[in-house]
Structures are given as C-alpha cells and as structure tokens.
C-alpha cells in the first residue's frame, strides 16, 4: 500500500475521532468536566440509527453507496444522542452540587448505565447496518488508495458537520455567547448571557456530534455496546493533544491521532528502510514501531507534542 493509501485510511478514521473529540472538548470548556460518558453517547447514536434504519428502510434512492434512509437514521442518531445527553444533564449533572472531579466520576457511572441499557436491549454481540458492503473504488486503486464510497461518505459528512460548527461558533449569536462563556463564565453571566441555556446548547451540539461519530463508526466497522467506550481513550488523547477545551484544537488533535494510528504500518516501513546504526538499535526501533503498538505510538507523539506545547496545539482557551 502506498503512502497515499495510508493517508486516505487515516483521513477516514480521523473523521470519526474528530467528531468524537469536538464534543468532548466543547463540554469540557463550558460544563467544565471531562465527560467519560461521551464514548457511550456515541454508542447511543449508533444504535438509535440502527433501529431507525431498520424501521424505515432505504427509502428508495442512494447517494455515495448509502440509501437515503441511512441519512434519516443519522439525523435520528444525532437527535437521540443529544436528547439523552440533555436529559442526563438536567436529571443528574445539574442537580448534583459537586466539583468537576465529582462530575467526572459520576460520568463514569453514567457511561456504565448507558452501556448496560444498550446491552439489555441489543445483547453484547456485535451487529451491523443492513447495508451492502462495498468494494474499493476502482478509479483510485492505481494510486494505492483503497477506500469505499462509504468511506468517502464518512469524510464528506464529517467535513460538513465540522464546517457547520465553525460557522455556528464564529458567525452566530449562540456561537459568540458560547465562546464568551468558555472564556469566562462569570463575566458572561454578568453581561446578561443566560449561561444555563448556553450550557444546554453545548450539550446538544457536543452529544449530537458524538452521535454522528458513533453512526459513522458503526458504518466504518460494526456496532457493539463497547464500541464508543473502546474509542474513548483515543478521543481523550486527541482532545488533550489539541488543548483541552479548545474546539479547533480538538479538530487538529483528532486529525493527528487518527492519522498517526493508521500511518503506523508506513512508519514501520520507514524505520526498516532507514540506515539506523548500530544494528541493535535498528532492531529495537523496528520492534517498537510496529502495528501492535499503533495506539502507544500515537500516545508517545502526544507526549512529545505536550512537552513542547504544554497546553496542547491550540494552547489556552482559544475556543
């Protein structure tokens, strides 16, 4: 496989990570705690769209290898993920009068509850969308790129959502208020911003994006009750790499972590080709830069970046 092929794989995987990490960072910046239930919010989105898609079917036509019904199911997944997150905020996080560490630990419990509910309904075995799997796009094969139309759909949808969020943050009233609140919640409140309402909107956007990420993860791979939680560690790495609390940082971090994860085979080819001296060092390097350590390598790069930029790529508070 060529470098281009690995980059293409990385782009697809990054799209999913980016959708997950934006929500996590957004909630951190405004609700002020690291939400461990975020991964399972993705799972909720995925299973909602599975049910919706099962109920409404393909609805006739298809675009990018995906039936129209899938996009309706995607919207349903986003909506339900957002709804569940808002409900959890209203019922649990808001009434709890505890600090951010308390909320963090509560959210771990919430994650278990989400997962258990899904497991009760769907069992713990993996399942998948009833969509015909595709072969790679022939036109791209000569370049060594092996992606399907579904992968293209994932990237395109993720780009649309990310651009939409950018427009919302930069050019709308809500976006300005959200940025103000992330910078300084007290000052925002004093200036007449209804911070509670903004907080709810943050949950809607963050969880909605997570829901979309979950649906795409289900399409990319398959659905299982642990799918979101298994990805959560990588998403946290992306958020911290980008600078926790920063949406644009989360985008950059998600993109980098996803890329590094998928580029590991390429790195190991490079290490093998490099004239490393002495011989034992080359062997050690070849042993370490290997596909089994893809996540570990991503984390090492994260640590290296943090050593140079302690606050992450985007630095402090630049929502």
């Amino acid at each position, binding site marked *: *496989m060529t470098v281009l*092929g*690995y980059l293409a*794989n990385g782009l697809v*995987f990054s799209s*999913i990570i980016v959708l997950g990490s934006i929500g996590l960072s957004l909630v951190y910046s405004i609700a002020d705690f690291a939400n461990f239930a975020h991964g399972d919010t993705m799972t909720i989105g995925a299973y909602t769209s599975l049910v919706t898609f099962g109920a409404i079917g393909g609805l006739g036509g298809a675009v990018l290898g995906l039936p129209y019904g899938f996009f309706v199911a995607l919207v349903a997944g986003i909506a339900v993920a957002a709804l569940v997150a808002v409900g959890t905020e209203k019922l649990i996080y808001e009434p709890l009068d505890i600090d951010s560490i308390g909320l963090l630990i509560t959210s771990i419990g919430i994650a278990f509850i989400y997962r258990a509910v899904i*497991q009760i309904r769907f*069992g*713990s*075995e*993996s*399942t*998948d969308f009833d969509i*015909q*799997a*595709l*072969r*790679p796009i022939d036109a791209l*094969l000569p370049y060594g790129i*092996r*992606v*399907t139309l*579904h*992968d293209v759909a994932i990237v395109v949808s993720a780009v649309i959502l990310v651009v939409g969020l950018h427009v919302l943050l930069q050019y709308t009233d809500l976006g300005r208020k959200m940025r103000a609140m992330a910078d300084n919640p007290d000052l925002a409140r004093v200036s007449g911003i209804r911070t509670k309402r903004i907080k709810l909107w943050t949950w809607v956007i963050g969880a909605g994006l997570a829901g979309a990420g979950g649906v795409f*993860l289900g399409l*990319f*791979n*398959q659905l*299982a*009750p*642990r*799918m979101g939680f*298994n*990805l959560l560690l*990588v998403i946290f790495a992306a958020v911290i790499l980008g600078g926790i609390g920063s949406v644009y940082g989360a985008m950059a971090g998600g993109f980098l972590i996803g890329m590094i*994860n*998928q580029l*590991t*085979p390429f790195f*190991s080819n490079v290490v093998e080709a490099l004239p490393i001296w002495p011989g034992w060092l080359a062997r050690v390097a070849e042993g370490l830069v*290997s*596909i*089994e350590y*893809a*996540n570990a390598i991503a984390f090492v790069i994260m640590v290296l970046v943090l050593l140079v930029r302690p606050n992450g790529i985007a630095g402090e508070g630049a929502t």
Partner: protein
Amino acid sequence: MSRDSTDLANRRTLLKLTGGAGVAALSGCLSTTDDGGDGSDGSDGSDGSDGSDGSDGSDSSDGSDGSDGGDSGPYEIGMVNSLTGSLSAFGQRNKRGVDLALQQVNEVGIGGRELNIAVEDSESENQGGIAAAQKLVNQDGVPFLIGAVGSGVSLAIYESVVQDTDVVQLSQNSTGLNLTNFPGLLRMSPSGRSQSLALSNIIAEDGYDSVAVTYVNNDYGQSLTDAFVNAWDGDIAYNNPHDQDQASYSGVISEMNSSGADAWLFITYQAEFSTMVNEVFSSGYEAQFYGADSVQGANVIENTPEGSMDGMKIVVPSAPVEEENYQSFRDTFESEYGQEPTSWAAYAYDCVINAALAIQAADEFTGAALQDTVRRVSGPEGETVTSFEAASEILADGGGPDDVDYQGVSGPIDFNDAGDPVGFLQVLEVQDHAYEGIDFVEG
C-alpha cells in the same frame, strides 16, 4: 428542647441498633448460601433480612446455623462465564449447555439433593474474571469452580484465586496451550496445540509454502501461534499480534497483504475477525483464509458481506457427532432451544455432569474431596456410561469413583496428568457464506 434532643438521641440509638441487627442478619444470610444448609434453617436466614425491625438480631445466628447443617438443601458450585465482552457468544452457548445439564442432573438428584450453580460474569477480561471468582470462592465458599472461557481469564483466576486452595477449577472452553503447564487447572476443551498442528497440516496440504499470521495479543493467541510456528515447515511472511477491541485493523491487513503470502491465518476472536474481514473486503484484497476455532460463529457470518470469506478453512474442537450419546444430547438441545448445539455448549454440559458426579462420588462436599474424585469419575477405569443417570446409579449402588467412566457428549474426557482431556477436531469450510464440515481430525 432538652427532651427533644434526648428523644432524638434515643431514636438514633434505635436506628443504629436496628441497622446493626439488619447487617448481622444479612451477613447470616450470606453464610447460609455457602453450603446450602438445610431447608428450614435456610429460610429462617432469609427471614433475617427483614430484621430491620431490630427486635431479634438472633435471627442472624439462625441464619448461620444453616452453614453447618445441610443434608437436603442444594449443593452449590460456582461458574465464571463470559456473559458480556468479546467472548459473550461463548457465554451464551455455555449457558444453554449448563442449563440443560442442570435440568438433567436435578431430575435425578445427587443422593437426594439438587445441584445449584452460582454464575458470575467475567466480562471476558482477566480483572472481571478474578473478581467473579473471588466472589464465588471467598464469599460464597464454593468448592468447585467451573471457569472460565478465555484462556487468559482461566489462568488469571487459577493463579490469583484458586491456586493454593483446595477448590477444583474446571475450565469449560479454554484451549490455550500454556494451561497444560498447570496440572491443577482442569479443562473440558482440548488444548489448542492439536488445532495448531492440524492447521499447519491443512495449509501445507493445500499447497501453500508461505503464510501470514496475525493473532490476538493474549495468552490464547500467543500460545496457539507459537505452536503453529513450531509445527509449520514453510515460510512465515508475517507474524504479528493485534490488540482486542480496536475500531480498525486496516493496518494489520494491509501489512498482511504486503507480506506477499497467499495464505492468511487468523488466530483471534469473532468481533475482531469480523472487522478484519470487512476491511479486507472493502480494501479489495484477495487471499485464502484459515482460522482457529474462535473466529467461527453465526455473528461473523451475519456481520460480514456475502462471499467475503468463501473457501476459508477453520479447525474447531468438535463433539463426537457419530456417538449415540451426543446425538441424544443434540436432540434434547434442539427441542429445547430450536438450534443445533455447538461443541462449546457440549463442553459446558460435560463440565456440569462431571462436577455432579464428582460431588456424588465424594465423601464430603469439600474441595479436597472433589479434587480426588473429579478426575476419577470420568477417567478410563470403570464401567463406561454415557449419561448422568446411569453413572449416578452405579455410584448410588455403592460404586466408588473408579467404578464409573463417564463418556461426555463432547468426547471421552479422560483428563491426563496435565488436566487436559482427549478431544476431536473438525475441519470446517465456508461455502456460500455458511460453515460446512468437511473432515474430522483426531485430537
């Protein structure tokens, strides 16, 4: 004012006392579940749980009385199963086998008493398995533990909970090779070494001289792969582990593809393997697949595109399907669950039957006594019997553990010194996106 506060203090004291009594009563209940206890005292113990009226904490001592009695209550043994996590498919199969066996044992009874199995979930992980086993062994005090599914989990349980105690551990589904090094850890499913040998023979017979192997990064994957590498004479173009539960394995399969080998061997679990097959399909690679038993399952067929793994060959430990006792097991299983049993269900079934016979043959319901009988009731000495009922009759007529040779529905059992059974293997081929048995191999 002062009166009020006294009242309050009194009420507090009362609350404390009732609370204490309640806790004591509850702890009484806990110990009753241990050895079953005799029926009437046992139910007193559960009365104790509503000891919140606090009037008689003495109920709790009634409860603990149950633990030293015990002639008519059920025998309780423990089981660690994979109800959730990546091996949950095995857990489901086990459950069906166990339920069926329990039903048949309790129809006959063990010397007039029933058998009860306390099941805990390992979540298919070492930590979960250890916690489950600790609960069963240390809290419930079971002398016989069936568990677990994953080889790593079985070993973790053995090393941190069972070793240095008298408790008998009998794994229902573990096929990892290194379990052979722990003679105290019994298992019902044959060692994976036979699988690795069979796979290397089959791949060689199919005319491949180069193979790419990827295995799940744990005891099971590592040991099967090591055995395969030892047995394989040809070239190994790729040999790397992968982690469980990853969202993508496209790196692994693209490396396998660039290794140039035409035969790809997967020693991993179903969820991981489905992901890989999907990615092989969507990347447009072509290769002849081979797999160890754990990559086979109905959910793999469901979650992979039609035709994506046709021609794949898988070696699975198999029940002796030509034997009469297996066929009757299959018929009962089918009428009960509406589907054919897997060999995994048969192993779990035999675990329960073997445990029940060991209990009946033993002088007392303790780990030490069961250690002695568990191998002998299914060992090669004695009269050959194929059902619990027949074996139970011999024991009831005064027969010792050596007078019975229980032949399981999964095979002759006959644990060797290392705690491994004799087993059979079946070769499956994927044809038209379904598994077809094409051959049998001796284990």
